[in-house]
């Protein structure tokens, strides 16, 4: 079993992954940010969770990311150019959340690989269950980050179970 002192800093990794993702979204937005606009969509504060499995020789786990619906609406607009309230944009919310989760998990996997824990990603699963309600195995190590960005509260949780020496 890997000594705890040699394990990756999951909180640092979670925060770094969020920073990369948000930085790129900000750069893609060609108009002044108006974060309050997506907050007018129905159920703006409903939480959407994206889950991506991690699988490697030395660890297994998953990355869970939680976004309010308003943030996913904003990201859909930035990525596709679709209007906030367009029916097509609303239909894309789960897909966008899955892709954001995929990107974030990719950043996490890159950091884990740099720390000696290479792993592959599963395909994202999207649900409307808040992070706090998801079951965690007692041997799983948890880490992550919560942050507020442009009025949106975002959270990432990284669950890792280490295997081997």
């Amino acid at each position, binding site marked *: 079993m890997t000594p705890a002192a040699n394990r990756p800093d999951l909180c640092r990794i979670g925060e770094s992954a969020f920073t*990369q*993702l948000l930085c*790129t*979204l900000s*750069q*893609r937005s060609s108009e002044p940010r108006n974060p309050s606009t997506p907050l007018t969509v129905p159920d703006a504060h409903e939480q959407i969770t994206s889950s991506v499995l991690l699988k490697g020789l030395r660890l297994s786990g998953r990355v869970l990311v939680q976004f309010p619906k308003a943030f996913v609406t904003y990201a*859909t607009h930035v*990525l*596709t*150019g*679709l209007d906030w309230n367009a029916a097509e944009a609303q239909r*894309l919310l789960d*897909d*966008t959340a*899955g*892709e954001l989760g*995929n*990107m974030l*998990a*990719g*950043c996490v*996997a*890159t950091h*884990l*690989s*740099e720390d000696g824990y*290479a792993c*592959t*990603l*599963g*395909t994202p699963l999207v649900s409307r269950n808040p992070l706090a309600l998801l079951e965690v195995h007692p041997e799983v190590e948890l880490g992550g980050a919560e942050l507020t960005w442009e009025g949106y509260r975002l959270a990432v949780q990284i669950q890792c179970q280490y295997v081997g020496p």
Partner: protein
Amino acid sequence: MIPRILSIDDSKTIRLSLARLFRPFACEWHEAANGEEGLAAATRENPDLIILDYNMPVMDGLAMLRKLREHASLKRTPVIMLTADAGPENIAIVARLGVRDYVIKPFRDEELLAKVGRIIPLIPRTET
């Protein structure tokens, strides 16, 4: 003759994002949602470039790339791989399969356009 681009990604959001990115340029745009559909589309359309996602259900990017390299008329089609995992092991796997280039998600539009522009001509639609 305008270049043909085939975009293969299971995320409709990404497919729309890419279509929007390349709309200002004179190119014929085609899409597929996984590797299996992508192979069928590539056989049908004979693209000049494939932008291929790594992580997809049904048939992922690696599996599709291997089949592409076995196809007599498609094995030399240039491929740019989109991947969320920038770890060295992952990049080595991708490189060994002979992709022309790769882009890490989330990517900057300018980066992808520059890499595509090195493979096919990107001419604004207003000039054609």
